[in-house]
């Protein structure tokens, strides 16, 4: 089911009695989320992601704006009646119930025509449990499960009633690194198999990029950009989005445009056609550097990290905002790395420039 948000806004009245400033957790969201996709809602912590999720599932009511599931407006519909499934950050498994009892809990809430017999419920629960591969653990209590298993139970419980929409709040944040990789693939697979529109919240851009069909990047309650992960990565709208996506992060330099040429200090690094003279931020992706003995960009070499297929050249430049410049270079070019200084030319496609004041992208 597709989800449409219209000018959705949530304002929390200020808790601090002295400063009367209200907190705008979600600011004027207008977006259409396509049916059957896996959507990553991405942003730094405290940016209002979880509030957005709570508005979607009905645990909080918006201050303004509307929410549609398909064609129906559900803005003020209580959470109980929305038919969404939700996986909570700490899973919120009922500690006194077994895995099976946890999973069939939502089914026991069904009323009227949807009411199921005990056998049908168990059958259904087993089906979902198989999907998330926990069918061996049905009689255990949550406290007897590992973090990853609890996570799966939580997903099973959210899926069992075949929700129109599945919401996940930081689903991987409580797992260790290895389990995280594995589980995110799992989430991807489950979503593909069930085709339920799934929205998950995360502050980890890698997580969002790797499995989402579409990502929504937000900060301070505002949506900054939406789109397919690769598109957003290649074509960031502003400095924040460019900085937020990608590991290692984009390298940001202070620079300026003079006579349609882009300068970092005195070095003219790139031609930029049709851009007026101005001060800019220059963002260069790690893979945007090419080692070149005569390259215009001269940096002080720190070290070279060999990763096998690639090498990472770590260097420094006075005008770089980052502590260090990380550039990823194919290991075939390793021989060309100098000893004290390193010179680069830049790949135009991997260089983005942003207005110094508005931080908006300037296209060239």
């Amino acid at each position, binding site marked *: 089911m597709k989800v449409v948000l219209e000018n959705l806004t949530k304002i929390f009245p200020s808790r601090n009695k002295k400063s009367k400033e209200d907190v705008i957790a979600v600011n004027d969201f207008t977006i259409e989320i396509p049916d059957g996709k896996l959507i990553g809602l991405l942003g730094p912590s405290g940016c209002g992601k979880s509030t957005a999720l709570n508005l979607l599932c009905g645990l909080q009511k918006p201050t303004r704006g509307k929410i549609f599931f398909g064609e129906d407006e559900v803005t003020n519909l209580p*959470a*109980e*009646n929305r038919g969404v*499934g939700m996986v909570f950050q700490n899973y919120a498994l009922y500690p*006194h119930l077994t895995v099976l009892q946890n999973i069939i809990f939502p089914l026991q*809430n069904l009323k009227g025509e949807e009411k199921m017999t005990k056998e049908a419920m168990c059958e259904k629960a087993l089906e979902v449990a198989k999907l998330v591969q926990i069918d061996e653990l049905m009689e255990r209590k949550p406290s007897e499960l590992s973090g990853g298993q609890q996570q799966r139970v939580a997903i099973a419980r959210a899926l069992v009633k075949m929700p129109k929409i599945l919401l996940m709040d930081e689903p991987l944040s409580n797992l260790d690194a290895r389990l995280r990789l594995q589980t995110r693939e799992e989430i991807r697979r489950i979503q593909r198999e069930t085709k339920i529109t799934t929205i998950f919240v995360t502050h980890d851009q890698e997580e969002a990029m790797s499995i989402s069909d579409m990502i929504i990047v937000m900060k301070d309650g505002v949506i900054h950009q939406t789109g397919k992960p690769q598109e957003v990565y290649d074509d960031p709208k502003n400095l924040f989005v460019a900085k937020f996506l990608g590991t290692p992060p984009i390298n940001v330099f202070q620079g300026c445009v003079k006579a349609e040429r882009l300068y970092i200090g005195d070095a003219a690094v790139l031609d930029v056609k049709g851009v007026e003279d101005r001060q800019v931020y220059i963002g260069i992706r790690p893979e945007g550097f090419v080692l070149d003995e005569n390259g215009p960009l001269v940096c002080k070499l720190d070290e070279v990290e060999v990763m096998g297929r690639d090498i990472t050249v770590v260097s420094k430049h006075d005008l770089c905002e980052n502590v260090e410049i990380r550039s990823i270079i194919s290991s075939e070019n390793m021989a060309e790395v100098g000893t004290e200084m390193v010179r680069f030319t830049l790949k135009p496609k991997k260089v983005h420039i942003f207005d110094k004041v508005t931080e908006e992208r300037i296209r060239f």
Partner: protein
Amino acid sequence: MDKKDAKAWLYLLPAILFLGVFMVYPLIDVLIYSFEEGYNSASQTSFGVGSYNYSYVLHDPYFLQAIKNTFILVIFTVPISTGLALLISVGLSSIQKLRDLFQTIYFLPYVTNTLAVGLVFMILFKQTPYSDGLVNLVIQFFGGEAVDFIGGPYWAKMFVLCFYTVWVVLPFKILILTSALASVNEQYYNAAKVDGTSRFRIFTRITIPMISPTLFYLIITGFIGAFKAYSDAVALFGTDLNAAQMNTIVGYIYDMLYGNSGGYPSYASAAAIILFTIVLTITCINLLVSKKHVHYA
């Protein structure tokens, strides 16, 4: 014993001394008393050893009356006070406005003198030659017939006693339950809501199991407390509880010990041990039942 040990025992000395004299020794002594037949407190002599004291107590109509009263009190006040406390605590935790005020008011009876406030209850319920008392006037207003709750029929006196007991024990229960309810993680409620759970079902399937250890603790202490009821009855009916047919087991023990009918520590001891046995049995039954139904996190 080296120096370190000696120092530790020195710190413990006052506690051991007090506990030894006023708790351990009496514990042994009370058993001896209860089996010494014909003990005379003046000459401190007895005829011999046997179970006569128990048999006397168990055949004493006053004691049987006390047992009956105590059991009625327990059976009514424990479930009613626990249920009412639960109801009020749930109400309290679902509101924001005035919550602190209500909480403070509800706790007030805890810090008041049972004997003193009991007097107020007495004048509210009592029928005197010059006034029927406020409660009776209310009853008459609704078309009922006035009853003397303090000096009248048994059921009426029992009703006041139960009512006052509930009034006295509720503050503690409300306080404990409210803090137990507040400690349940909000996320469980949110999860249940998103899954379309009705409020009633959330209450029975989530809230109750989550606070079941506290609830169970309150039921056990409630049983123990109610079995030891005494001063509530004195507050309402005066010190001569036997005459009022309102004596409790504990009251019987004290009456045997001291007062108009006093001077029989042997009978008092036997009654005290019978009381202890009853309380122990009920507590064990409670523990057994709880194993099945209480969820310990």
